[in-house]
C-alpha cells in the first residue's frame, strides 16, 4: 500500500498562509519520494472556494470540512475535523505549519491518534520509507533527527520561512472531496470571544520578532522617528537602552536590558547603543544582531553578527529604504 502524505493547509480569512503553501510543497516532495499521493486538508467556514488552488502545488485531493462552527480555530473543532479526514485517508505522514494554530492542533491530533510529533522542523526527509524530521532542541543549540517508527500518521510541523514554495503549475488540478465532520457547536468546549489586534506601537516588546533599538547615540526623543520608520518597514517594534529611557526619550516599558525587558527576537538592530553588559543581558539571545555605532570599540560589536561603524543617522534611513525595496519584491 502506498504511503501518502496529508498536509493541513492552514487558511486565515479565506487565504492560505504562506507556511501552508510551504508545507504543501514540501509534502509533495516527500510524497514523490515515497511513491505516494499528496492530499491537503482545508478546514474552516466558506473555504470551499480556495481549496482547488492547492492542486497547482501538487495536491491530488483536497479534503474540505466547511462548517460555520469552524469559522475560528478551536482545538476541539479542528481536531475533530482533521481526525475525521485522517481516518478517511489513513496518511503515513501529516504535515502542518508551525504556527499558533499548528502548535495547538498538532499535539492534540498526535495524542488522539496515539502517534509521535516533531514540532518546528527545519528539514524533512524520507529514509527507508519513514519520515526523518530535523528539529532544533535546547533553543537551537542542538539539531535532532526524529523518527516515528511505528505509529501513524507521523506528524511534523514545519517552521515558517524555511521551506520553499514550489512554482505553481496551473495545469494541475485537485479533486475536491467534501467531508461532513458532523460538527455541533455544543461539543466545542472553548470559544473565541474576541481577537485583540496589537497595533504596531503597542506590540509587547517581548513578543516582537524584530526589534530596532536606540541608545544614547540617538540624542533626543524626536530622533527616534527614524527607528520607528525602520521598524515599521520591517514589521517590528522599537526598543530603547537604559540611557535613552533615563534621558526621557522613550518610556520605560520599551527598555531592553537587565532592569528592563529581556527579548529574544529573530532580528535585533542596535543603533547608538554601546552594548554595556546590562543591555546585553536583555537581548543577547537574539538570533541575529545588527549594530550601528560610531565607536569602533563599542562592546556591542563583540556580539553583533553584522556591525556598521558609522553615524547611525546616515545608516538607518538607508536600511529603511533598502528594506522597503526588498519587501516590496
Amino acid at each position, binding site marked *: 500500500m502506498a504511503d501518502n502524505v496529508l498536509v493541513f493547509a492552514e487558511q486565515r480569512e479565506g487565504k492560505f498562509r504562506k507556511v501552508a503553501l510551504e508545507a504543501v510543497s514540501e509534502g509533495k516532495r516527500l510524497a514523490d519520494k515515497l511513491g505516494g499521493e499528496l492530499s491537503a486538508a482545508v478546514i474552516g467556514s466558506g473555504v470551499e472556494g480556495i481549496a482547488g488552488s492547492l492542486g497547482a502545488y501538487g495536491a491530488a485531493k483536497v479534503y474540505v470540512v466547511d462548517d460555520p462552527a469552524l469559522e475560528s480555530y478551536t482545538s476541539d473543532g479542528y481536531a475533530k475535523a482533521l481526525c475525521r479526514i485522517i481516518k478517511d485517508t489513513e496518511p503515513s505522514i501529516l504535515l502542518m505549519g508551525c504556527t499558533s494554530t499548528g502548535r495547538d492542533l498538532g499535539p492534540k491530533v498526535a495524542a488522539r491518534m496515539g502517534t509521535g510529533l516533531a514540532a518546528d522542523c527545519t528539514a524533512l526527509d524520507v529514509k527507508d520509507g519513514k519520515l526523518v524530521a530535523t528539529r532544533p532542541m535546547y533553543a537551537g543549540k542542538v539539531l535532532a533527527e526524529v523518527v516515528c517508527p511505528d505509529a501513524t500518521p507521523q506528524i511534523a510541523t514545519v517552521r515558517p520561512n524555511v521551506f520553499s514554495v514550489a512554482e505553481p503549475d496551473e495545469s494541475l488540478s485537485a479533486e475536491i472531496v467534501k467531508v461532513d465532520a458532523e460538527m455541533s457547536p455544543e461539543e466545542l468546549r472553548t470559544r473565541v470571544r474576541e481577537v485583540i489586534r496589537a497595533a504596531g506601537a503597542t506590540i509587547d516588546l517581548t513578543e516582537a520578532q524584530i526589534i530596532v533599538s536606540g541608545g544614547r547615540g540617538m540624542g533626543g526623543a524626536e530622533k527616534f522617528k527614524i527607528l520607528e520608520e525602520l521598524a515599521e518597514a520591517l514589521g517590528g517594534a522599537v526598543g530603547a537602552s537604559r540611557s535613552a529611557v533615563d534621558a526621557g526619550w522613550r518610556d520605560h516599558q520599551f527598555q531592553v536590558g537587565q532592569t528592563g525587558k529581556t527579548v529574544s527576537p529573530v532580528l535585533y538592530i542596535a543603533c547608538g547603543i554601546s552594548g554595556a553588559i546590562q543591555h546585553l543581558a536583555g537581548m543577547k539571545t537574539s538570533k541575529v544582531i545588527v549594530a550601528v555605532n560610531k565607536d569602533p570599540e563599542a562592546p556591542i560589536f563583540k556580539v553583533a553578527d553584522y556591525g556598521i561603524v558609522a553615524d547611525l543617522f546616515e545608516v538607518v534611513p538607508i*536600511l529603511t529604504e533598502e528594506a522597503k525595496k526588498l519587501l516590496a519584491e
Partner: protein
Amino acid sequence: MICGKEDVMNVVVLVKQVPDTEAKIEVKPGTASIVTETITYVVNPYDEYAVEEALRIKEKLGEGEVTIVGMGPDKATEALRTCLAMGADKAVHLNDDAFAGSDSYAAALALSKALEGLSYDLVLCGKQAVDDDNAAVGIELAELLGIPHVAVVTKIEISEDKTKAVCHREIEGASEVVETSLPAVITAQKGLNEPRYASLKGIMQAKRKPIDAKDAASLGLSAEQVGAQGSRAKIVSMTPPPPRPAGRIVPGEPAEAAREVVKLLRDEAKII
C-alpha cells in the same frame, strides 16, 4: 479525578527540571543525547509562570491546594522543592528509570495516570520545556484526560463560580480572548506574571512538605508503555548546529554598508 467543590480551587501544576538556558550544550559523541555532567539544572522557566499563577489563584481565593507534578530522575526533586518553597503545598514525583527517554506522548500518558489520582479544577504548565522545545505535553495531556486546553496564555481570569476561565492566548500579532470550561489545561507564556523568589522562610517550610514518589507500576503502567519504549517519536541522532559565523564589521561608506547589511539579512541570515 475532578474536584467540583464550589468554594475551593485545587490546581495542579506540571513542572519539569531542565538545563539552564545558559548551559553549554554538547552532544555526547556517538549518542543521541547530551553531556549532562557540567550542566546546571533549573525549573523550566515557563513552568515557573504556571507555578506563580497557581499560587496567585490560591491566594486570591484563600482556599485550595497547589500540587506540583513532575517527571524526572532523582535530582528533579530539587526542582519540586523549589516550587514548594515558592508556596506550593505538595508534590508528586514521577520517578522511575522506565520513564527515561519519554517523548511528548509517553510523558503525557504517565502524567495523565498520575493526575487520575489527584483532585483538581485546573491544570497549569509552561507552554514548552526549554530542553525539547516541542511544546506538546500540556496539550497532549489535556487530550488524554479528556478535558479542554488553552495554550500560550498571557492572562487568566477564573469565573466567580469557578466553572469557566477566560484566557488571553497569544497568536501571531494579536491576542485571542478564549473562554474555556473548567477543568482544563492552560499552558503559560512569558508575560503571564512575574514569578516570586522563594524566601528562606519558604525554603525551610518546603523541607517539611510532602513529595510523593510514584513509579510506573504504581500508576498502573508497564515499562513498555512509558519512557523510550513507550515513545511514539524517537530521537535517532543529535548534532550541533552549523557554527554561527563570527560577527563582522561590514566595511564601506555608510550607505554602502547599510545596503550590504540588508542584503546579508536576506541572503545569509534569511530573515527578511
